[in-house]
């Protein structure tokens, strides 16, 4: 088990390399020049050349990539081209904000999904089932930004209950002043994982309920609650796998939702970095997010293995 974990951590190294290389190339293939974003359009040719040299953008691409990599290995992600701030600091703050949003949305989606999926499976073929499946399809299909705006119109504009933008004053804290900012974006973001988890849980639980061992359990005279325990432990690996992947996607920060709600997370940061051709920022953010994704996958795998002995690896 320990050996397996270690091997999986080692696999992260080539993944990290590939991700940064692809991202680096994509930024350079795309049209547009970072210098244009920071200098006024009428800057002289000498100024442009000077700034370009300053940022190391005059060197050939492989060398640029190599230099960047060398610094990253030493923990130095460089400074943002756009605002000269340390990429690492920006990243930590944005990722922290996104983590709050993503984990709230994921948690909410997971709970809703498990409840609806479980109910749908238990009452298969009835109106409960159809309602839950309808919600799941709707949740997966509805455009995020549209739902976000509708929620803003209802709860911020019409009712005036909740703020529509930002993450609250100053640093994050778990108090009402901040949580009220979290509610609308978290609900908006939770809809997709809720839909996916509903469908997964429904499918898995229906299958478990049709298994022979359910008859054995009933035949032992176990009551509903104890039979439920068996259903939950059997369904958990699949539900967690879906949830883990979703949390990974959410950590990338939903660009649209974070933009609609002006939530200062990785999504909004990436959005700005792309428009400004802020290469160090983009590179750093993608690398960190890819690593978070790999780590989440590993955690999900380990939990799954702990729950389902048949997956045990050596």
């Amino acid at each position: 088990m320990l050996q397996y974990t270690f091997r999986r951590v080692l696999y992260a190294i080539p993944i990290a390399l590939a991700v940064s290389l692809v991202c680096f190339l994509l930024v350079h293939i795309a049209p547009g020049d970072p210098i244009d974003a920071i200098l006024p359009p009428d800057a002289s040719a000498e100024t442009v050349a000077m700034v370009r040299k300053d940022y190391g953008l005059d060197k050939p691409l492989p060398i640029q990539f190599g230099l960047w990599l060398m610094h990253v290995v030493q923990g130095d992600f460089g400074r943002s081209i756009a605002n000269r701030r340390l990429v690492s600091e920006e990243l930590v703050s944005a990722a922290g904000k996104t983590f709050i949003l993503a984990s709230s949305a994921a948690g909410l989606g997971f709970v809703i999904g498990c409840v609806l999926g479980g109910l749908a499976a238990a009452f298969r073929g009835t109106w409960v089932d159809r309602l839950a499946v309808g919600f799941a399809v709707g949740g997966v299909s509805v455009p995020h930004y549209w739902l976000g705006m509708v929620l803003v119109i209802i709860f911020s504009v019409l009712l005036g209950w909740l703020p529509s933008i930002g993450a609250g004053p100053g640093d994050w804290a778990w108090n009402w002043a901040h949580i009220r900012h979290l509610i609308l974006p978290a609900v908006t973001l939770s809809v997709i994982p809720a839909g996916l988890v509903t469908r997964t849980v429904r499918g898995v639980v229906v299958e478990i309920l049709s298994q022979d061992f359910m008859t054995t359990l009933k035949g032992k005279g176990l009551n509903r609650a104890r039979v439920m325990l068996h259903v939950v432990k059997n369904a958990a690996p699949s539900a967690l796998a879906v949830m883990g992947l979703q949390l990974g996607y959410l950590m990338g920060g939903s660009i649209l939702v974070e933009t609609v709600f002006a939530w200062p997370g990785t999504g909004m940061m990436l959005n700005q970095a792309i428009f400004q051709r802020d290469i160090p920022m983009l590179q750093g953010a993608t690398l960190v997010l890819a690593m978070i994704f790999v780590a989440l996958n590993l955690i999900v795998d380990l939990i799954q293995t702990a729950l389902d002995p048949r997956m045990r690896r050596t």
Partner: protein
Amino acid sequence: MPDTLVKARQLKVRFVQNGSAINAVNGVDFDLNAGEVLCILGESGSGKSVTLRALMRLNPPSKTVMSGTLEVGGRDIIAATEDELETLRGPFVSMIFQEPMTALDPVFTIGHQISEAIVRHEGLSRRDAKLRAIELLEMVQVPSAKRRLSAYPHELSGGLRQRAMIAIALSCRPKLLLADEPTTALDASVQIQILTLLREIQQEMGMGMIFVTHDLGVAGEIADRIAVMYAGRFVEEGPVVEMMTAPLHPYSRGLLGATVREGSRGTRLTTIPGAPPDLRDLPDGCAFAPRCSEAQSPCLAALPDLRTPEPGRAARCIHVESRP
């Protein structure tokens, strides 16, 4: 007068779904006393497993319709509430299934699956239940029982898995053990071990047992009485020796003739022509008549009633003479 564990009268089980109904069990009568082993013999789809499950009301509740009289341990099973059934399942009646791989929960240890019923019904602590689970595994002759407690079903061989299944069924010392083809999924060499074990335990604990199988050899090995089932009815019932040597019903004779057994060397095996009837649309008369070489017109007109040529034997065939 021995305890009557099961009393079934005109027991019928129908599966109703989307407007169509399958008549799986069509009027079964029998009694089972403590310490007695009844073997229900029949081919696939004859309703033997459904009958067995009906005794614990384990058929899918949403589409099963039961009628007639069915008493298990003096309790009316058809009218019982779920709570009443829960107290009956385990301490009074329990079941062993055909396929131990799928009948055991793959994500719980054997120890957990044995002890959870003990905890539930006898209120023992987890630790005491574990000790009892070890005893049970030793009783069903699982080697190094203590170590196997923490094993998962997929880590055991088929034979050991079935032994674990038996240990689960025996965990609350039931008075009635139901076995649904428990040896069918096993190797021939393991089959006989399991059968012997079941017979020993049954005698030791004085349990009543109903054993469902399609294998005549298995039935002869374990049964006191045999009931032959066809199209949801008992067509013949009687003590094992008489049944095996001089079957009354043409279908029983057909089954015997199609089986390799002692004394069949040199004689040709026969087959029963045709196929079992459609359970959605049963004939009015004897369900076996269309395949029967001795069928006459009364066979098709009405269902033959049960005739008893001698005490303890009965058959549903017009060729059998009832003697008072």
